[in-house]
């Protein structure tokens, strides 16, 4: 598996061009690789290194720092149950316990059909909606054990395909800057002057 496809290389170059230095695109490109393959392959990391001018070890060093990047295949749905304070105060442990039971896997495990991977996550910024979880980074709030079961049923039956893409895809909307509107990123060393509008006059 797999270096980035031709289409993704094109997209990668578009992303890289938005930064003054190519290496800034490392994390976005790792996401792109994960979107392509469901997880981040070694070949993809080496390829990203070539694209942004880093060694594979540097790309791996960056990638492995972040929770979201997986280096082995995970389930089609990554179920992240929040276990931090606010959720813990309102039953996160019970929900996790129930989820383990329902899916038949321990935390970190993947169901044999490859559909679900269960993880405990840290605070998801939905503390007032405890206990909460994310499926492929789409939220469910104030989840009861019954609701958890029907969520799993719905996912397994494909009833949520419209809302929840398979693991790897995070945002489905990408920034696009048309060349006639964008200013263009410039390496910092090529900028020497103050922005033109800092001349003491109004810009409009």
């Amino acid at each position, binding site marked *: 598996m797999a270096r980035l496809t031709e289409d993704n290389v094109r997209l990668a170059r578009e992303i890289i061009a938005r930064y003054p230095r190519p290496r800034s695109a490392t994390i976005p490109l790792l996401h792109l690789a994960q979107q392509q393959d469901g997880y981040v392959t*070694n070949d993809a*990391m*080496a390829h990203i290194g070539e694209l942004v001018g*880093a*060694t*594979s*070890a*540097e*790309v*791996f*060093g960056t990638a*492995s*720092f*972040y929770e979201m990047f997986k280096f082995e295949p995970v389930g089609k749905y990554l179920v992240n149950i929040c276990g931090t304070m606010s959720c813990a105060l309102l039953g996160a442990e019970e929900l996790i316990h129930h989820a383990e039971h329902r899916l038949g896997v321990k935390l970190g495990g993947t169901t044999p059909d490859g559909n679900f991977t269960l993880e405990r996550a840290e605070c998801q910024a939905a503390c007032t909606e405890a206990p909460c979880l994310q499926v492929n980074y789409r939220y469910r709030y104030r989840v009861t054990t019954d609701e958890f079961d029907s969520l799993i049923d719905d996912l397994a039956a494909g009833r949520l395909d419209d809302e929840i893409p398979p693991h790897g895809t995070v945002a489905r909307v990408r920034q696009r800057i048309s060349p006639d509107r964008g200013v263009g990123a410039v390496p910092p060393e090529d900028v020497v002057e103050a922005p033109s509008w800092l001349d003491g006059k109004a810009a409009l």
Partner: protein
Amino acid sequence: MSTTETTPEENVPPADPNAVRLTINGREVEARKGEWIIAAADRSGDYIPRFCYHPRMESVGMCRQCLVEVEGPRGPMMVVSCMTPVADGQIVRTDTPQVKRAHEGILELLLANHPLDCPVCDKGGECPLQDQAFSHGPGESRFIEEKRHYEKPIPISDIVLLDRERCILCDRCTRFADEVAGDALIHFTSRGNNTQVLTFPDEPFSSYFSGNTVQICPVGALTAKPYRFKARPWDLEKVESTCTTCSVGCRITVESSRDQLLRYQGVDSEPVNWSWLCDKGRFNFEAVESDDRLGEPLVTSDGAFASASWSVALRRAATLVSEAIAEGGASSVAILGGARGTNEDAFAWASFAKALGIDLVDAQMGDGLPSSVFGYPQATIDEAAHAKTVILLGPDLKEELPVLHLRLRDASEKKRSRLVELSPKETGLTRYAWSSTLHEPGLQVTAAESLLDDPKVAAQITSGSVVIVVGRGNLAESPEFTMEALRRIMARVPSAKVLPVLRRGNVRGAIHAGLSTADTADVLRAAIDGRVNCLITVGADPIADFPDSDLVRRAMAAIPRRISVDTFLTASNQNADVVLPAAAFGEKDGTTTSAEGRVTQLARKITVHGTARPDWMIAVELADLLGVELPMGSVHEVHDAMVNSIREFAPVSREALRRDPDGVLVAKSSEIRDESATRTPNDRAGFAYRLVVSRKLYDNGRNVEKSPSLAPLAPGSSLYLHPLDLDRLGAVDGAQVKVIGDRTSIVMKVQSDPSVQRGTAWVPFNQSGPDIGELIDAGRPVNDVRVETL
């Protein structure tokens, strides 16, 4: 300096705007603006414990061991001394109960997950963690949880192993790899308590500089195969010396135990190596300890070598020389070599030659540059690394003078210098170069001229100091092209200085000592003409080193008497009449002269192998048997004689050397006119590729081949073509191809390499496998080949 005319006021030096006075533990300390507190404290003798801080790398302030208290507006503040700059009037305390508690606390935390396997750890006894636990630690760990577990040492390269359980995550090795070596092949991975140093899967830390990480690791996490489990640090004895593997002249300690060399460590010499070494220099002590070392003289009898006593062997050698002189006079005796020994060795052999009237003498093996290169104003390594512009004209420094490569890389990365490169092939410095021009072999003059005509380059060059680093970048090309390019650049930039980079350890010393009155190619041609009756090789292997294999082979075959002084049997001395075993590095005292002309001391650490003798002594004894008395009874006497009779060596008295362990620069050579002819490259005449032949760090030389840890790293012989040329040829990467010159053809592997220019073929020199020297005609300005698929 005279003080008679100055008034007392004028005598007070002007206030240094960068001087800063601070107080450390109640005592006033002088420092310079921008310096870290820890550096000032080191000088004032207030030792602050530390792990991540290394004076030659950027501070990261992450181990937190070096905390001190600095008086602030709201009372004392705890800061890391390795990343807090000194300030005027600053009040620093390193000894309060609060600081002591912090030091103990951090140390206890570092030890929490440390395996404490000191009794089986190579570092035990010289381990900063162990030492600081002893002097600054709480004495007892209260950590009763289960420790982190990792697979015990994993190889991260062919030479280095990593024990992640011992690692304290100081970021030294990883910073070194990225910041100093430019080989970011090891990196922190994962996060938090799981952070670990790793390589990318299946991409080893194959850096020429990997051994430095072992030296700077503050615990026993990184170990090197050649030293692992060989000794306990408290059994090691050490002396300071200079590495002579190449001509950078890195200062090292030579360390041994029970009369066996076990380790070299880099010494921080400010003008030279900043404590770094390359792996070849660091680990080739294995060759000194090799079982293949010559331990007794060998004399041929009935076509085979037989051991002989020194007196027999020396007498035999003397007979050979006197027979030759009797037959054809002193001008029929030749001496090749001397660039791998000490200055004293070279001077003794030069004196030998002079006394006997021998002038077919050369220390270079046809793979260097004419000694007229020393006639230009000379630059030091430090001057090069601080020049506004460094013009690189010649070899790939990463392969030939690796630590000079590091210094120049640093100069470029720290934005002190801009590198302007002219090379037949991309080099290790190409990616750091401000401008890099690849020229066709033989066309460096045109390339240099058009480069200097470029207004941007011209402006750069006039913006400040210029140093030209010049050496032999292509063994398949006449050195005159490089000399001509140098001449043209000097004509345009008369204020420029030159740093010659001839690679062999003491080649500059040998040349100054007088061991280069002829040119090896001329000596070999004379031999073929039957004009050489006796050849003495002194630590030289012309068959391996001289680029034109056909010429050297025919020449050697035509010489009736051959005497060799060497540490090993080589291609060149295996048929010699007499082989005299020489003392190796670490077995003899003396001095050496680096590429920049810095003379430093070499020290003996172990007793010689077998009955081997230092080269100088062999010269003196042989002279004696030939009826010539050289007044040199000891290495000191040789040195003094040299200082007294050679102008370049005049400043390097023993007294001067003792004063400055960093060494003393040789005096400027008297104006040597560069009179080499201007040549034009020959036509390609149907040959598709111009040959570029140059060295890789690891080759078939004795130092590498006899070091078991290094030998496997030599890449072997291959022809490298640009990928597009390879496509055009219709060959696949790794296929065997026929390489055709106008003399002969050889079959070798072809490999794709984008750093090779189109229309040129690059072959590393002196590798095992097919010999590219077969296709090099030393008489041609440039050499061309055709390549055919099989």
